[in-house]
């Protein structure tokens, strides 16, 4: 995971605390741009659990991680990458 290295999704380097749809050279969906999200740990948790419920019409193809403990581990990892 590298800063500025976007793939099918935007780089997740430093994503915790970042404003949603804020990487200039990534092509976000209109739905995500209009959602006005801020990637707080709580918001990330809700999004990772059910992406399509949080951002209906977004590009995210992942259908969600049900395991709350796994989500917490993932968010803790993301918080360590900055």
């Amino acid at each position: 995971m590298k800063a500025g290295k976007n793939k099918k999704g935007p780089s997740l380097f430093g994503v915790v605390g970042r404003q949603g749809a804020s990487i200039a050279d990534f092509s976000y969906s209109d739905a995500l741009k209009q959602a006005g999200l801020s990637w707080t740990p709580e918001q990330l948790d809700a999004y990772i659990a059910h992406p399509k419920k949080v951002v209906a019409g977004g590009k995210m193809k992942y259908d969600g991680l049900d395991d709350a403990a796994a989500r917490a581990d993932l968010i803790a990892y993301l918080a360590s990458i900055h």
Partner: protein
Amino acid sequence: MASKMLVRPGIQVFHGISRSRSLQALSALTPFVLWVPTAHALPSFARQTGEECAACHVGGFGPQLTPHGSRFKLSGYTDTDGKGGKVPLSAMMVGSWTQTRKDLSEDAGPHDGPNDNASLDQAAVFLAGRLSEKIGSFTQVTYSGVDEKLALDNMDLRYAQPLTLAGKDSLVGVTVNNNPTVTDPFNTLPAWRFPYVSSELAPGGAASPLMVGGLGQQVMGASVYAFWNDVLYAELGGYHTLSHQSLRALGASDDLGNTPGLTDYWRLAYLNDQRKQNFTAGVFGLNSSVQPGRIDGPENKYNDVGVDASYQFLGTRQHIASLYSSYIHEDQKLNASFANGDAADRTGRLTEFVLNASYYYDQTWGLTVGRFDTKGGRDAGLYAPGPDSGSRLASPNTAGYIVQADWSPWGKEDSWQAPWANLRLGAQYVIYRRFNGAEDNYDGSGRNASDNNTLFLFAWTSF
């Protein structure tokens, strides 16, 4: 996949070996080498998506897919990192050295000796990737150094549309392609199963079911598919042989004959993707009528039905283990071959069982062990005695093992020249326990099954 397949169905690989009339008549349907798929690991996909090869492929190299890779394929090869300027072109080369345990009785190829042959198996260019928002391509043109010929190889041009079916996210699509099973998103069906490369200059059993490469590149067709809720995959397609003139223009062989009517192909599969591991189970089939030599009159009819299953442990991707298996049963009605004197019976059958297991460490080091077993009824017309490729017992029964070790140093995000180049070096050994019906003197000329044991060293690169 050499020429999509390193060994192309219907193409005589023992170029220098004369065969009996009956075997020649069957050649369109039964390759004389282990039929193997064309293997692909295409950096143009990595450049398009911004992802490493290892995101979609086990071992950092194609064609073993992860569920993520399967979805990319079913999405029509169109997923992208959102940046423009991506050119959907790739290239690939495979070079190899082949040694059989005992020299063949004649040269293994038109430009090769009876043993210890080095060859440029294929040099290929691909139109591979996103052509528009919903249309993508995986189309290969291959130069075979063995045949010294350029030909259209596998073609899979598809349109995919995400939509909601019964309240669940789904993908539906249409593909125009030239090889039944090349469209499949798993690694259990003939077009994409292990071995992903193998020698073009070594013997293989006398027969295999028609859908094991017997139609590839000689037919053109279309299929519709749906992938529902990331769980159920269904596909239905129809194919017809191309005209002799079209095949010649495309550089393809015309060994199959004519297929009056439509050759239908169907597939149903279940996927359970638990992220760290996944398994699949499915059924598939193909029905075709063939007029060998494009002669009007009686037809051969082939009815193939198969089951397949796989298990894959992905974990953290440091240790990846995969298990694949398939079983195909083919019923044959050989009215045309019988009338031509090429078959001794009007009916026949073949079964084929394939099982293989692979382990990859650190997306780099791989070991695969496979078992193959083809059985069929005896037919003195179809399987006549003859040096190397014949059968003393009039039997196609061939079985053995394949062991392969390989090294794929690139294909990861931080690899040298990523995402512009990839490489796999490998050593493969094929062990025959039975060949065309027997272990000893199988061909009636004193050759034993183990004489065909084959060491195949290969270097396979794509960019």
